[in-house]
Every structure is written in structure tokens, then in C-alpha cells.
């Protein structure tokens, strides 16, 4: 090759590159379609529904909720608190400590914490009057009957509430207990002596 001869590339004026049109190959569309399909499947299985409460290793909100400690009484206690804050708190106070000359305490009261709820169910159903000993202290007051205002469920809820609040740790009260006590249809306010004749359970 003669070194003096200019190369072809310099001589010929190169054309500007131009973007042309050409069809997208069908296989590329298919591949992207499959990738999109797979990505949606992956998200459906692993994204936890984009819920902010779902973290690894839980795949869905339901499983997170199931892994949390279950408290079946929480709803009943909440309902019981509603009843308590409508009625009972006026005398027994929100703290459950009661007040001299108004109402005896519920905190640590042996009547509240008795293993069965029979006697306390009678108190809220039929009221209470006359002398009664609570935590070694004598009281002589009158509590109204609430059996006409609330149904068995609500009374069981409020009893469950006061037995679990303020450091009280007694089991929940079943509505059946209140129902059985209501079925006795006692004619007048309870007194301490009559309550003590009742079975604890």
C-alpha cells in the first residue's frame, strides 16, 4: 500500500447516523412479558400486601397478627371499662379505690377477687345494703341494683374488668354466672349475711 495515498475513510464523507424504525422482535416482548408476570407473582407472595406492619419473616398481616400474644379477654375488658366508666366509677372511682363514706374499694377486695363470681354477680344484679366487711374494714352503705340497666354480657364484662384492673388478678367472669344469678330473681337488696350463705362458685 502506498503510504502517500489517503485512506478511503478520509476521502469519503461518512453519512450521519440516522435512527431508523424497525419492529421489536417478538421474542423480546415475550421475555419481558414473562418477566413481568414472574415479578408480579413474586410481589404477591413476598410483599406482604405492602402493609407497613408486615416485616420478614412474616409473609402476610394475618400471620403477624397470629404471632402476637393473643388476649381473648381484651375486648371484654374494653367493654367492661365502658360500663364501668358510665356507672361504677362515680362511687368506686376510676382508680377502684372507693371513697370513705361513698363506696368500699374494689382493689384487692376479697369480694371482687373470690375464685367464683357468684357473690359479686349478686351484688351488681341486686344491689347491696347494710354492714359489710371489706379488707378488714366495716362499711355500712347502700349500692343500687344494676340488673335492670345492663344485660348479663355487660355485667360479666364489667366484673371481668374490675377483676383484672389496678393489680387485681382474678379470672374472667362468664356471662353464664350472671345469668344463673339473675335466674334466682331475688326480691330485695342483698346483705352481707345473705351473700355469705351463697356458694362462692
Amino acid at each position: 500500500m502506498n503510504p502517500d495515498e489517503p485512506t478511503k475513510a478520509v476521502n469519503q464523507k461518512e453519512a450521519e447516523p440516522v435512527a431508523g424504525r424497525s419492529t421489536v422482535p417478538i421474542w423480546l416482548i415475550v421475555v419481558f412479558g414473562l418477566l413481568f408476570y414472574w415479578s408480579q407473582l413474586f410481589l404477591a407472595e413476598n410483599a406482604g400486601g405492602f402493609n407497613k406492619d408486615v416485616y420478614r419473616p412474616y409473609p402476610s398481616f394475618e400471620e403477624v397478627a397470629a404471632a402476637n400474644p393473643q388476649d381473648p379477654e381484651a375486648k371484654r375488658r374494653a367493654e367492661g371499662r365502658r360500663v364501668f366508666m358510665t356507672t361504677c366509677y362515680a362511687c368506686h372511682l376510676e382508680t377502684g379505690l372507693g371513697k370513705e363514706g361513698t363506696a368500699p374499694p374494689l382493689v384487692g377486695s376479697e369480694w371482687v377477687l373470690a375464685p367464683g363470681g357468684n357473690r359479686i354477680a349478686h351484688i351488681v344484679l341486686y344491689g347491696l345494703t347494710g354492714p359489710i366487711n371489706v379488707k378488714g374494714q366495716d362499711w355500712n352503705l347502700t349500692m343500687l341494683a344494676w340488673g335492670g340497666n345492663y344485660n348479663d354480657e355487660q355485667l360479666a364484662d364489667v366484673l371481668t374488668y374490675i377483676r383484672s384492673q389496678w393489680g387485681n388478678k382474678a379470672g374472667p367472669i362468664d356471662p353464664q354466672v350472671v345469668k344463673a344469678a339473675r335466674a334466682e330473681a331475688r326480691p330485695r337488696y342483698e346483705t352481707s349475711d345473705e351473700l355469705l350463705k351463697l356458694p362462692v362458685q
Partner: protein
Amino acid sequence: MNSGPLLFLGLFATMACSWTGFVLGPQLQLGSLAQTNTVVVGDALSQTYPLAQPGEAHAGAEIYRANGCAACHTEMVRPLDLGSDLQRNWGVRRSLAEDYVFAQPVMLGSQRIGPDLANFGRRTDTNGIYLRLYDPGLITRGSVMPPYRFFFETRKIGFFPSPDALVLPDQDAPPAGFEIVPRPQARALAAYLLSLRQEGYLFEAPPPPLPKTNAVPTNAVATNAFPAAAKPVPK
């Protein structure tokens, strides 16, 4: 052929997609994150979590940031199936977005040249932090962490010795009549590190189910630091 508008639309769509995914989506998902209550375990009471940092810890976060601690230390406990953090006792549960509500900025870090600090406040005390800053090898033998001695001041013992002077072994001890005391930066940094506690189980990371038997759980043994330098295996 004028492809300008088409190019603009394509670029705009690309940017809009990433903005939606990285900014708008997380904002919609976690933007309303606030304090919550911890899950009740047993007889314990539910607590408000997380709590705002005290002022000195807030200042310490700036020291942490300024000195590049996040270059070697992370503040993120990985979930059980993505690493050994929980087995190392670096936390009782994985880290959640909730843990960083008050962190500004969030210094997650990306490299673990040093141990994870997400729960450092749970496993050390002020003195331990001072000793690690002054001479990292004192507590963790063979540590590659650089000493941060400019956080400390060597000064003449005055009328009374300073109550928070470092108690150092012989090779690091100051000359007679002198004492080494932490400067305000060290105090702030220690307050920040002590405030790093991802405590309490939250709804998103509930407590592990209680073991059915009374067997001791495998992660019951607390290890407060890395094990000391490996002993040579006798041949």
C-alpha cells in the same frame, strides 16, 4: 427526525417511576410513623416506644456523624433468617422502621468492620465507651478501630482528682500527677451510644413463642462483646 419530546417523555417516565418507588411509596407507607406501645409480654406493662433522645445524646449523634462512625458500624439488627445478628445477641428482635422515628438522619451504616451498635446501650456503660474510645484494644483485643484520643484531655490533677478520670492499665496510664478526662464530645458521644436501645417487642416483631418445655433457650447466654482474640489451637 426530532426525537427530543419523545426522549424527554421517556426520561420523565423513568424518573417518575423511581420517584414513586423510592420517595412517594415509602412516604405513603411509613410517613405517618409515630410512637406506639410495646407488646405486653407476661405481667409487664406496655410502654411507649421509641422515646425521644435526651439532649446530650442528640448532640452525640452529631459527633457520631461527624467522626464517620457509621462507616464501620451499622445500627440495624437483621431478621433471624437473614443473618446471625440475633444469635450474636446484638438485639432481642430485628430492627424496624419504628426504631428510627427520632433518628435524624438515620445512620444505618453499610459495612460491619466493627460490631453492630443498634443495641450498644444495652450491653455497655459509660466507662466501657470511654475505654473503647481511648484505646479500643483494651476491651476487644486485636480491634482495628482507631483510637479517638482527641476526645480526651490529659491534665494535671488539681486539688481533688476528677471523679470521671479514666482508670487505665499501666501501658496507657498518664504520667504521675496527671489524669485523663473525657472532653464534652466524649460525654455526648457516650450519651448517644447509651441511648441506642431497640427495646421491647412491637406488633411488627412480636416476641417469640414461649418454649413448650422448661429447657433453657439456646440464645440465653449473654455475650457482651466480641470474644477476645482467638487462642491458638494446641497441636
